[in-house]
């Protein structure tokens, strides 16, 4: 695993007063728990920001840190240590939840680097035609018509086997397109992790576009699944 260099701001330990950098969860001198460190989710695990993570190593580190930080280990500690254990563990859990999931991890890293990532809200903008990827315009138009028909038929208590089959086929197609996006994203991970500043900027731009496309496809698939399962 890539490790963070000792570059963070120095602060003094609350317990032994020896200086250490503010990215650490425990004092290197007296091992006491420290208030929540500054720095990003990657630094919680002692990592520099990168995308191609080893998930089993991440889990192992998560368990190791949980054993030391968890409030269960501080049930009878002084109030300040109790508070820090709670805050540090919340940070650890938030970090782990974000980093172990590939899409969340990518979004998080891009946001760290100033990219504006569309938030996934209750899908208000998903019908906005300007957001439809150009190569999918025709298919999406067709699909929306079929979804409307399907819902109308459902309401009347009718079943339309042909329509059902057609929707299922569309779902398979969009599932396949999602897989392609995921594959492309992974390729960009490598480009970002290993590239120089220029390559990173290019990879970043490509990933923002891929994440937009993925979000769009995801909403479509969800719509179809909901309509089929209703």
């Amino acid at each position, binding site marked *: 695993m890539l490790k963070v260099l000792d570059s963070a701001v120095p602060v003094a330990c609350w317990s032994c007063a020896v200086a250490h950098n503010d990215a650490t969860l425990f004092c290197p001198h007296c091992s006491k728990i420290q208030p929540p460190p500054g720095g990003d989710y990657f630094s919680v695990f002692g990592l520099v920001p990168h995308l191609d993570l080893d998930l089993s190593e991440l889990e192992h580190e998560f*368990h190791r840190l*949980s054993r030391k930080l968890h409030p*269960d280990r501080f049930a*009878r500690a002084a109030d300040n240590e109790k508070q820090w254990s709670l*805050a540090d563990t919340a940070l650890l859990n*938030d970090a*782990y*939840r974000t980093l172990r999931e590939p899409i969340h991890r990518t979004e998080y890293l891009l946001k760290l680097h100033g990219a504006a990532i569309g938030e996934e809200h209750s899908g208000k903008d998903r019908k906005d035609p300007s957001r439809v990827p150009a190569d999918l315009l025709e298919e999406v138009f067709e699909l929306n018509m079929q979804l409307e028909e399907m819902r109308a038929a459902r309401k009347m208590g009718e079943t339309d086997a042909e329509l059902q089959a057609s929707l299922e086929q569309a779902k398979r197609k969009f599932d396949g397109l999602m897989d392609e996006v995921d594959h492309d994203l992974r390729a960009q991970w490598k480009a970002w992790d290993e590239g120089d500043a220029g390559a990173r900027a290019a990879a970043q731009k490509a990933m923002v576009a891929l994440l937009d496309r993925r979000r769009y496809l995801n909403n479509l698939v969800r719509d179809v699944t909901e309509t089929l399962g209703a």
Partner: protein
Amino acid sequence: MAEGRVVGIDLGTTNSLVAYMQGEAPVVIPGVDGSNLVPSVVALDPMPAGGGRPTVTVGNSARKSLIETPERVIYSVKRLMGRGLQEVQSELKLFPFRLADDVEVGEVPRIQLGELRFTPSEISAYILRQLKRNAERFFSEPVTQAVITVPAYFNDAQRQATKDAGRMAGLEVLRLVNEPTAAALAYGLDRAKVGTIAVYDLGGGTFDISILKLRDGIFEVQSTNGDTHLGGDDIDNLLLAIALDEIHAEHGVDLRKHPSAVQGLRKDAIDAKIRLSTEAVARFDIELPNGDRYQREIPREVFEQLIEPVLERTAGPCKQALADAGLTPEQIDEVVLVGGSTRIPAVRKLVDDLFHLAARGKKPHIELNPDEVVALGAAVQADILAGSSKSTEEMLLLDVTPLSLGIEALGGTVARIIQRNSTIPASATEHFTTGVDGQTNVAIHVVQGERELAADCRSLARFDLKGIPPMSAGLPRIEVRFLIDADGILKVSAREQRSGKAARIEVKPTYGLTDEQVESMILDSFDHAEDDFAKRLLIEARNEAETILSAVERAPQSPAWQQLRGEEQGAITAARDRLAQIKQGEDAAAIRDATLALDQATRRFAELMMDAAVTTAIRGKTMENAGEEMGDAVTAPHPMAQAEFK
């Protein structure tokens, strides 16, 4: 802080238990009657003639009042914990309790019991206090810290209400642990250390399903789901409703108007349910007030058809939990059954179907008593928190929040900020601003649940951010941090970032007690003082001594006495005299020892009396009649029979 013991408590809908870690194994602490289970029943004794507050009794002794004075007894109070007025009202359609007349919307509902009113937390506090006393009696030392279990699917308000109850009972609640997770801990102590397990927990009033991954002593919950309105009570109510309807239709008697008759019938319904777990048919045979008899056979097939809709309601949460964990039934290595209702064969069949167990040559785990396993797990967690024992030092529980946390956004929709099944503690930071120039307050509505509209979710609290420096609209930047702690309870803090000023937050929990209210409900706090503690131990020891002495007093009238050898009679008389004398002194431990000695001296006599009672019963009389003939000592549990002393 004193490093006393930490006990584990299962505060159940039907029964409650307290357990502790005895060396490497968790053990349930019996009550004074020798029973491990304390029925979660609270009764108010009659008003004392001279005025003052009536005594509150808990457990088996309270259960006795159910038939005689049902208006002074409450059970299944867990169903009311942390609930609002409307929810409580709908619960009360099924339970014969009365709300206090003066309860207002927005207040914590109070239950009318005799001439007094109690919040659900206070009722639970009485149960907790009883368990605390049982533990103190057992250890002969004060117990002030506990782990208490709650259904995994309990929301914030229900958890807070449980913590409040602990405080009222004089207990520092070190942790709330989810019941299915506790059960997994109890099983995990001596089990293979790697695997994925599902815990199916169908108790008296709640249903939980949790899926956990075990690895190197870490119990990591993957997902949880459930229904806090589903349990054995629902099955009892189905049987009860049938009986009440049939009695009304066939005999023209409306028993619903007679609370004590309904209680009697409920007991029969429960007996029938229990019998149907082992037998093919159960019977109702009840004498009605008008002299008629209501007789009815319930074959198991009819029973299973009847309860199918109830059991089927557990399937959805199981499937959702699997989906949330990203697992198929085949990927579940073990299934653990928890809760008395899992004794029902139809429940076991359903679990088998849901997790494809038989098809894979597997069986659900039922090795630990389903009534006790949660308390045992709570004791394990208590030991982890105490941090002093080798057997649990490698163990750690990572639990999740069962429900998503959200904020009401424009248009009444919910912006989710912490997703369900997030490992706790978990946090989220949100930014808010003002909509009007000079605005100094911002109101935030926090909800819990999975629905799209805030109105369909559970309202947790309204926060009022006050003291925002007056600025142009949209300029203030208020950072609000939401943190769900290890008990699953929400904490909120806020800061205005431009001025750096900490915004003041006024929390109005939608259903909950204020700190001051909890303070005012703390049960008689004399429990804390060492002096009073010693006094109480002495009183309890004397009471126990008196119980056994009065039983022995009547012994010579029993035919069994004549069967004893002379020296056995002599030993009993000597032990009796010794206890009678020591009882006058102030040494609780000495009284205990003498009580135990008398108990041992009378053991063979008690056996002889039991034999005599059984023989009488076989001759065509009931045990109860036999008991009357022989004196109380026969049917009353031998007061010291199962209690253990250190």
